[in-house]
């Protein structure tokens, strides 16, 4: 199966754009959750997208369009693990040296949109989510903002559906507890 690649009047227009506009934010969020930095998240997302495009264009993709998102979650995760292994030594060195620089977060590092939500609360939520161990936060990100089922998450992470569900539940509880603690301390 190939993607139609052009329209008559306005020259070549990729149909990937429409799909990216619809799903790109969810995928970037997941990539951000899987990596340490925004630049890494973008690289990982790009690698995974290229692999999807290659498979689809060459007709090697198994399944329909609805299977693209589970494929992307799996691929982003793999790319993040590979990138982490490749760059671990280099990154540790960089973080030591440019730690202060990393502490200065720009708005492009934000995981969520600021509009329509209390900014302070958003930052707290985001911080608490980032502090959560990855095995919990990845399930939460896929479930809440990716709209994946526990069965799909289980398949993506190669764990049982029940494990995915219990990681989600305990992760949500831990997240709420962190935020309750922040509220009691007066941070919220």
């Amino acid at each position, binding site marked *: 199966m190939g993607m139609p690649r052009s329209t008559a009047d306005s020259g070549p227009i*990729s149909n990937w754009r429409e799909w990216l506009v619809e799903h790109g934010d969810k995928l970037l969020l997941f990539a951000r959750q899987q990596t340490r930095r925004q630049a890494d998240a973008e690289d990982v997302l790009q690698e995974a997208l290229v692999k999807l495009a290659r498979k689809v264009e060459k007709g090697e993709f198994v399944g329909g369009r609805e299977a693209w998102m589970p494929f992307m979650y799996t691929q982003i995760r793999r790319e993040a693990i590979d990138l982490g292994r490749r760059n671990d030594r280099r990154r540790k060195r960089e973080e030591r*040296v440019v730690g202060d620089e990393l502490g200065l977060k720009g708005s492009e590092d934000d995981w969520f949109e600021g509009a329509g939500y209390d900014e302070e609360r958003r930052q707290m939520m985001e911080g608490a989510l980032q502090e959560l161990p990855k095995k919990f936060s990845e399930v939460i990100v896929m479930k*809440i903002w990716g709209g994946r089922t526990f069965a799909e998450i289980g398949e993506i992470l190669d764990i049982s559906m029940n494990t995915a569900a219990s990681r989600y539940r*305990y992760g949500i509880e831990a997240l709420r507890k962190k935020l309750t603690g922040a509220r009691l301390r007066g941070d919220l």
Partner: protein
Amino acid sequence: MDAELKKFEEELERMAPRRLPENLLARMEAAMDDWEEHDEKVVPFPSRAGESRLIGRGFLKAVAAVAVLGAALALMLPGGFKSAPETADRPNPSGSVLLAGISPASFAPQDAQRKLVSAADQGVVVTRDSRPHRVLRVESMDHYTFQNAKGEVLTMERPRVEFVLIPLETD
């Protein structure tokens, strides 16, 4: 899932993931269109000039100097490094001397009991090894009875609060 968690879940759902900025969207789109030309390998960023200077020999010398200074400082501190401080929970033997005119040695322990006052679920925490635990706050009261040779009885009560972590299985 209880109502509070459900409410919290709904609150999370109201947060929208950051949209792809136009330049990033264009970059991703271009990469997908040019999948044939795309080099699959991620080329690592070249280290910046300012950073590499810090990693050089001078930087290592500076680190070594700080380490030596720290060690010397530790030796000069009065009393050096102390072990863990006494905790409030540890029984204080001298506490019984507070009763004026009574020698603590003349009282012998007769009875000790612990009564459970309350236990409350404090939610789930994740420990450093990434394992979830349920936190139970357990309040109890310790009762101690002492008696001396004259048959005088001394009772002591001490409230106790403990937080018990119960490991939860996820896989």
